[in-house]
């Protein structure tokens, strides 16, 4: 026989055996995916920085940005990253009630962040198409906002599922963990985004 295996065939054991080695790779899968997503944001950041370096005045007159509200928003989002971690810790101790509490708070903070963002858009006095800066500004923040929204949906999904007795527990919390990782990702992207769009204007 040419093959490299020695099949010791035992039909009865086969069907059984097939499922012994299935692992759950969802968490590393998500992390790999987020690496890729991050590069998309990196593309946007580079575009922003290149346009900034080429412009005479950035942001140009009449499209100044305001700093207070986004700063508050940043604090909320960064804090929510800690809050969500409490939820994850809780479920690992089989405390589903704690999970629900902390995830609900995180969801509320995420919603406040989005509301703040929309409020900011409505009060800026210029729109997407005003000039190159506003193009970049709305695209980047909007795209990030979309990710916050998706993260929010994930968290709500976890909350919804956690209503079922025994759906999550000390041994079974991949979904919880994935929502948390995604939320951290959204947070990290925001920190970079806040730094280059808002903080750099102070320099």
């Amino acid at each position, binding site marked *: *026989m*040419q*093959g*490299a*295996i*020695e*099949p*010791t*065939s*035992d*039909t009865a054991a*086969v*069907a059984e*055996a*097939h*499922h012994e*080695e299935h*692992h759950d*790779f*969802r968490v*590393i*899968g998500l992390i*790999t*995916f987020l*690496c*890729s*997503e991050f*590069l*998309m944001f*990196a*593309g*946007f950041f580079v*575009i922003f920085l*290149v*346009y900034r370096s*080429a*412009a005479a005045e950035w942001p140009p007159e009449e499209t100044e940005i305001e700093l207070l509200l986004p700063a508050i928003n940043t604090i909320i989002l960064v804090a929510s990253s800690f809050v969500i971690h409490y939820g994850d810790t809780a479920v690992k101790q089989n405390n589903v009630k704690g999970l629900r509490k902390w995830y609900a708070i995180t969801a509320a903070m995420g919603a406040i962040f989005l509301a703040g963002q929309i409020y900011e858009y409505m009060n800026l006095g210029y729109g*997407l*198409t005003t*000039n*190159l800066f506003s*193009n*970049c500004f709305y*695209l980047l923040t909007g*795209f990030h906002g979309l990710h916050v929204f998706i993260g929010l949906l994930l968290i709500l999904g976890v909350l919804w599922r956690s209503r079922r007795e025994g759906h999550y527990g000390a041994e079974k919390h991949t979904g919880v963990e994935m929502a948390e990782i995604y939320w951290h990702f959204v947070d990290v992207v925001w920190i970079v985004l806040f730094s280059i769009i808002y903080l750099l204007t102070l320099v």
Partner: protein
Amino acid sequence: MAQANITGEMIGNSFPHPDKWKWYHYFTFNVDHKVIGIQYLVSAFFFYLVGGAMALVMRAELATPSSDLVDPNFYNALLTNHGTIMIFLWIVPGAIGGFGNYLVPLMIGARDMAFPKLNALAFWITVPAGLLIVGSFFFGGAQSGWTSYPPLSLITANTAQSMWILAIVCAGTSSILGALNFIITIWKMRVPSMGWNDMPLFCWAILATSLLALFSTPVLAAGLVLLLFDINFGTSFFRPENGGDVVMYQHLFWFYSHPAVYLMILPIFGIMSEVIPVHARKPIFGYKAIAYSSLTICIIGLFVWVHHMFTSGTPPWMRMFFTVSTLIVAVPTGVKIFSWVATLWGGKIRYTSAMLFAIGLLAMFVFGGLSGVTLGTAPVDIHVHDTYYVVAHFHYVLFGGSVFGIYAGLYHWFPKITGRMLNEPLGKVHFILTFIGTNLTFLPMHELGLKGMPRRVAMYDPQFQYINIICTIGAFVLGLSILPFLINAIWSWSNGPKASGNPWNAKTLEWTTDSPPIIENWDVLPVMTEGPYAYGEEPAEVSS
């Protein structure tokens, strides 16, 4: 070898043994990696025919210097979508999605990919991509080339151009999802007896490809989103009149699309590294050199993109830097070529159709690589950029390389995939026609380019007609060459002689199961007792 008869129901899968699969099982959201591989291969081949038909219309138009067969705008639409289809709907999904999905789990001794559902999703996302491309013709078709440079892409056929962008975003998403699946499958799901350096070289190639796709595709997506906004929502990212920058688009595009040429050739290199040792009956020469040169290509390949932009007002230091990096990236490619030649050297070569395509590939790819090196040298490129010389270059590497490689792979693995042997004499006719057709079509284009004929035009100076006619004849020979293959494949799939589990006497794991493989691939997972290329050697301990 004894194989247990496992039915789908026994393992909680609703599909029966592959022998009993009906055609409609291939049109469902099936999560079996083998079904998905076949779905990719067949749909990609379909698009190959569509894109090929477009090319024949273009070549017919170019038989005369004037624009007399089709409307020039339609010519532009054909040209744009020919390139797009061949790259995004044929070579990438065929080579990576098709062979990758079918073979990787089988080669590493896994029952499926790490994320079967995601895998099926990734395939089905390519369907809207195809529909969008085809549908865009009702709106005039995108007309700004597969590169879609602004400002042209901002001012022609806006609806069709937007559909084109969405199509590429779908195809890109599919390849990102596929890539992450491959990375985790190869990383985590090898049979325990298989160390990294016992892995078939095809898997190394797919791993390298996937890393590249994962890191470069999102950047293209970023660029295309901006383009979409410029076309539809009044932004000015690439509109110079409002402070935007067209060269920015080129950077974003080529940051992805240079690596994309490796997406199209690395899996082919993987196929070569499997086909050549099997049919030369010799261990592969330089296993580690081949494996690691793929990774080297990946890394250096991320830093050469500006060689497509030497004439885009690029400053001298950039020209210098990217000339040098381009010449460096040719080195790991050369390493592979020499390894294959050394593998052939002194082998007991069987001139099967698969092997003929592999050897044909070697000859043509070297040619294309050499013209690539001349193009990578800025002083030369400035003269021949955007002429037929570039067209000649990339068809030597893409047709003579990628397409020949896919053919080699199809002849090699057809018995495994379908359980039937292909007809060898027809295969040889196919090879000879393809080889003649390719050289007849693309060799004269070098001369056209050096004499200054620009690419992407429906009309040209009458002095070029003689050479153009040769190219057109070659193209129709290529068109004809498809027939023996199609007849062979369709006929053999149902009537060919039955294939044994291992008709080529190969040593990689996919040949240790039935042809076609049973559900979940093996009844008992295989154990590696010898290396994947241990031809003509006594079985020895496998190092890891």
